[in-house]
């Protein structure tokens, strides 16, 4: 089984909740959670992706294979745990430094999710035979949504749905409609912990079960998800709008070019004109 972790490294957003929880505590709780996942079965694997305001990066498994040679064995810890922990810590510190300078309050989530999904797909296509390869993704987020990411996020969400990979979300700060929708569509768990400093217990009790035993558990979930779509032209949230009949993309108003921006199909000008006919007002006949 694979556990993919997408961790938000937007330094500014983490600084906002500095009084509630320290980022280092999050990292150490996360490492214990990773160890617990690896402890479940020898064949379990983990993937850690850092998701920043400008780019996403895979922290573990790292592409250079120099890690285990450099980390000295001291017999104090189960070796696989030690290697994983050390690599993640080093890589995480690097990526946090890089993102200190930015000032945006959102992260490029779609990219990170796509990276995680392609890794999961690679592993499952390589596994031998009986029964599928179980994967799941956990996203720890403190940032807001970025409207321009709508299309990419939704595409990634549908991919996760197709691959039956649940995406759980742990929201420590900020509002994100996209993440709520993603968790709901992939039957993952969405949670907003009340006590972020106790994050380890949240991870262990809510986010540790595999999809196969989630059938037996009643995990907390979000019931009112805002399912409104955003329009493709201005990224505004719309509840009533126009939909292209060919590619089903959503618009808040008819595109000025009278053709769809996504698929390029031209609309019949007469039909468009019919949309704007004002209703005829029939004068009321006064009764004689």
């Amino acid at each position: 089984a694979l556990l993919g972790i997408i961790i938000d490294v937007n330094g500014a957003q983490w600084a906002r909740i500095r009084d509630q929880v320290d980022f280092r505590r999050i990292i150490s709780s996360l490492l214990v959670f990773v160890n617990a996942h690896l402890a479940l079965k020898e064949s379990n694997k983990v993937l850690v992706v850092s998701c920043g305001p400008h780019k996403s990066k895979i922290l573990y498994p790292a592409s250079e294979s120099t890690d285990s040679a450099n980390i000295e064995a001291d017999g104090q810890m189960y070796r696989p745990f030690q290697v994983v922990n050390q690599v993640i810590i080093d890589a995480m510190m690097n990526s946090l430094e890089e993102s200190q300078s930015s000032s945006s309050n959102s992260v490029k989530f779609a990219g990170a999710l796509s990276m995680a999904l392609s890794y999961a797909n690679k592993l499952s296509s390589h596994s031998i035979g009986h029964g599928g390869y179980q994967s799941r993704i956990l996203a720890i987020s403190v940032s807001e949504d970025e409207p321009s990411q709508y299309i990419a996020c939704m595409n990634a969400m549908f991919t996760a749905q197709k691959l039956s990979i649940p995406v759980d979300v742990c929201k420590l700060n900020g509002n994100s409609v996209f993440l709520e929708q993603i968790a709901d569509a992939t039957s993952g768990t969405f949670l907003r912990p009340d006590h972020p400093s106790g994050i380890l217990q949240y991870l262990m009790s809510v986010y540790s079960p595999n999809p196969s035993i989630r059938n037996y558990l009643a995990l907390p979930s979000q019931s009112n998800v805002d399912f409104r779509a955003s329009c493709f032209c201005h990224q505004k949230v719309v509840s009533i709008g126009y939909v292209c009949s060919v590619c089903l993309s959503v618009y808040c108003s008819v595109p000025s070019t009278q053709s769809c921006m996504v698929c390029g199909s031209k609309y019949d000008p007469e039909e468009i004109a019919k949309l704007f006919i004002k209703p005829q007002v029939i004068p009321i006949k006064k009764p004689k």
Partner: protein
Amino acid sequence: MQQAFRSSVIEYLESLPEPVVSRLYQVPATCLAVFRLLPELGQYLVLSILFLNQPFKMADLPIKSTAKSRVALDLVRRRLRALSIIREHGGFAQIHKSFRRNFRIALTGGDTSRSFGVPSNSLDKSPVDSQFLAAHAKRHWESILHYMVGTDLSDVPNDGVLMLLRHAGLMEGKNLHSMSITQAGFQFLLQDVHTQLWALLLQYLSISQQLQMDPVDILHFIFMLGSMQLGQGYSLTDLSPTQTNMLEDLCDYGIVYKRSKSSRRFYPTPLAIMLTTDAGTLVSPSAAVDAANTAPDQKTELTSISDAAPAHFVLLETNYRVYAYTSSPLQIAILNLFVHLKSRFPNLVSGVITRDSVRSALAHGITAEQIILYLTVHAHPQMLRNDPVLPGTIADQIKLWQLEKERMTTTQGYLFKDFSGPREYEIAARYATEIGVLTWQNPKLRVFFVNEAGNSQVVDFINRRLKK
């Protein structure tokens, strides 16, 4: 097969008394190994209460209230109680203190008891690499299996190994050097390496109790071996005398490698690494070698999974023909037990499954399920794409051939005949029916048949009542 492995180790652990189990949990490596043996829901339960510091209410667990969930939860609770991991009273449950402390240490680091093995960082004058260890393991392990099958081999296993085989009931014979394989031995041959390893180790544990070796120490060592890295040497410091003695025996099975009796370091082989693995793809020492050769943090980890192909080599067609892409004499000998092999090529052996070949296997004590399991476990990746893996006709036919042997059941006993009149027959037959020993009767011929156990009673009755 995984269930079989789990159940035998867990059963052994459950059979240990509570103080022994408490001592077992004082070491992080053992806690980790026991944790891996638990069922999935049990693992979730342990994780969710591990970092709590006070007793918790069972009702607080987020288990659904459907019947299926409740049944699953009860099963898990029973198992956890049997292993003394959880103690329940009232509605509250508490996790075993040592287990909690040491499992936390396993997850967070800081293990001062060196339970994961002390790596020897001093330079080895002539280092060994994983290929050598794999070959060493394969040679020793296969020599044991070859000895059981009866192929001629120059290196016969050690006396210690032979004694273990005899104690386990896998081979029998008065003379240690001329034993023959038993029914249990045949079944043993058809299992995967994992199950075989643990079967032998559990037998070793039961012998050790007679030899005054501490089973807790032995279990600690076994679980320590399971958590070691291949290719890393470990030093003998911090091992108890029991464990050092055990090391010699384990060398004979091919589980560890030690250059000489006085060497201060040892290397675990792929067989040791797979002690706590549950991967179902490790069905032979060669597969264990392939899977362990590529360390987890190398780029080639993905190709190693497909390299486990040598252990998946059997193709079974619907016309009962078998093609096995192997050249290992051991696997060919095992196939020979129930397949009528017809031709042999450098990389391929082919034959037919016939009624006679299956019947001879059944005569040796192998069951149809084991044959089918063996074929399924060693099936070629191309076969794995079928659903079910083996053609239904073949599987059913093997089972039918087994049923053919059960057409008749025999009962030993005595036939009563030559009654002087119908009344006598009536009385005797009714008495026999009343005490429940009558097996068959034919009133027309006035004969009835009584099983062996009840014979004396019926004879006494007849002597008393009818001879007057």
